[in-house]
């Protein structure tokens, strides 16, 4: 099997100095990543999720060579990232949702030209990749705008394009949809799906949005307190955590709680009722049953929050 990313017992320990009194400083060790092992085969798209401070970003920073691991073995495309960071950089693309890798004061066009020369991208490849990104990410009108004047969604699209100009084998995305509006999110997701399908690019993404995972990744890894606590399909995650989706129904008038097999009514507020059902089963039969037996005005389905799913899994689930 062609594993592009390999981690064996990788650790990262930070020395944190804390003020303890007027002059004294206390040294404390924080194990941000505490022995993580996994493999990602070429061409796979993997979600990497966990609560804040679980060690997601730290893992990505070790995978890109930004941080030196404190222990364990780590290889990306056969390269030890912290030892040969610049050699690895040619083969990976990185997008940080929180900050841009572009040059703040330069128009996108100039940033891209600089990327082309830094990565020594052959002319025809550059033109082809740029054209594709510009078209699929709707960048044509933004090319001459300095990066600092772009909106968050525009900047994110600009950043994703910059990370893909040199045909990277792996694309790391750290919160690529954070703070984006619905339309931008949809655009970014569609584009990532295309890149993965057409170029065979391996993608590892961290996110707070379960919809990202649902639409993009077959496999999801959950990290908590620096340890890998789940590795498998999203369905499995729901099953392990027994997470629930919610059907919100608006009725014509106030009624006693709806009773439908396969779901339970968790909340009633005037004519509006909340029905919970397992995330692994389909909403269709429940919707049909409600529509059949009750005077229905409107309804919507809510996906479980990523934090809830993880919390349920950690407290009730089996884990790996």
């Amino acid at each position, binding site marked *: 099997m062609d594993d592009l990313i390999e981690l064996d017992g990788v650790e990262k320990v930070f020395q944190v100095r804390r003020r303890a009194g007027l002059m004294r400083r206390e040294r404390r060790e924080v194990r941000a990543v505490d022995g993580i092992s996994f493999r990602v085969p070429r061409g796979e798209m993997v979600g990497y999720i966990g609560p804040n401070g679980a060690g997601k970003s730290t893992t990505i920073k070790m995978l890109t060579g930004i941080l030196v691991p404190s222990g364990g073995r780590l290889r990306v495309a056969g390269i030890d990232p912290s030892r040969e960071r610049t050699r690895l950089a040619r083969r990976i693309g990185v997008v940080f949702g*929180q900050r841009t890798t572009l040059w703040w004061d330069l128009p996108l066009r100039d940033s891209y030209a600089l990327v082309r020369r830094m990565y020594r991208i052959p002319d025809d490849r550059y033109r082809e990749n740029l054209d594709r990104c510009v078209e699929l990410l709707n960048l044509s009108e933004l090319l001459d705008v300095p990066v600092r004047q772009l909106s968050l969604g525009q900047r994110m699209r600009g950043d994703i394009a910059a990370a893909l100009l040199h045909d990277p084998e792996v694309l790391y995305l750290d919160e690529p949809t954070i703070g984006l509006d619905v339309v931008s999110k949809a655009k970014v997701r569609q584009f990532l799906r295309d890149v993965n399908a057409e170029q065979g690019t391996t993608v590892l993404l961290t996110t707070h949005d379960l919809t990202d995972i649902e639409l993009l990744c077959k496999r999801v890894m959950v990290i908590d307190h620096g340890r890998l606590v789940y590795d498998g399909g999203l369905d499995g995650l729901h099953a392990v955590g027994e997470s629930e989706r919610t059907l919100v129904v608006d009725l014509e008038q106030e009624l006693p709680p709806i009773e439908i097999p396969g779901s339970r009514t968790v909340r009633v507020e005037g004519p509006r009722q909340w029905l919970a059902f397992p995330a692994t089963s389909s909403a269709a039969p429940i919707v049909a049953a409600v529509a059949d037996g009750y005077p229905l005005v409107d309804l919507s389905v809510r996906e479980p929050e990523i934090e809830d799913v993880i919390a349920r899994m950690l407290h009730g689930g089996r884990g790996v």
Partner: protein
Amino acid sequence: MAESAVSTGLRAYVLIVGMWVRSTMAYRTSFLIMTLGNLLATGLDFVAIALMFTHIGQLGGFTLDEVAFLYGTTSVAFGLADLVLGTMGRLGQRVRDGTMDTLLVRPVPILAQVAADRFALRRLGRIIQGAVLLGWSLSRLDIDWTLDRVLLMPVMLLSGGAIFGALFVLGGAFQFWAKDASEVQNAFTFGGTTLLEYPPTVFGKELLRGVTFVIPLAFVNWLPALHILGRPDPLGLPARIGFAAPLVACGCCAVAGLAWRAGLRAYQSTGS
């Protein structure tokens, strides 16, 4: 490997610098005004010294022309380092806010990226000012131009630039640990130039020893200049000690390079 890192670094440096120069040149008038401002500000600095000489004939046994020589040489050397590496002072901020991460994912040595970031051509002002003063002093000084003195001139300026450059890098490396340390660096670089603008004879022996043997600022211009001006060294070092400047510069660069590597490996990034 090491050699290819140097060549990719230089290439990237030229690339990024070229881009900044082009983007500065988009506002030509602004650039000219900034450069003129830079020239004036540094020029006024020497006017203060010249005014002082209207009241005293000599400073530590040195005439105004000789002080101008010292001032010009340190200014050119510092100007060269400041032009090439002047933005190293911003490194601490990059470490603090985590934007250092974005440099680390590019296939180019960090030093080249940090040094070339926001390259400001207006810093040429300092070199121009120094060169003008140096030319003026040379036209008035009566120097016995032996071959070794002629040779020592370019050697002195380039080694001086390299020593200041090494200090910039060393200061930058230090900021990986102490994130607010750019002022410490400034003390040695900007502070160093102010020191070297004056004759070594006005300072105490302890200070002279310190800048000769500990932080070898004396090799930037004092020691070579003493030989060119035909003056004895106040510490009693041999006259040709000035020729050690390139060696000292290489040593400084090696130390700075090692410190830089250690700093980079100690980099801890920021949360998220």
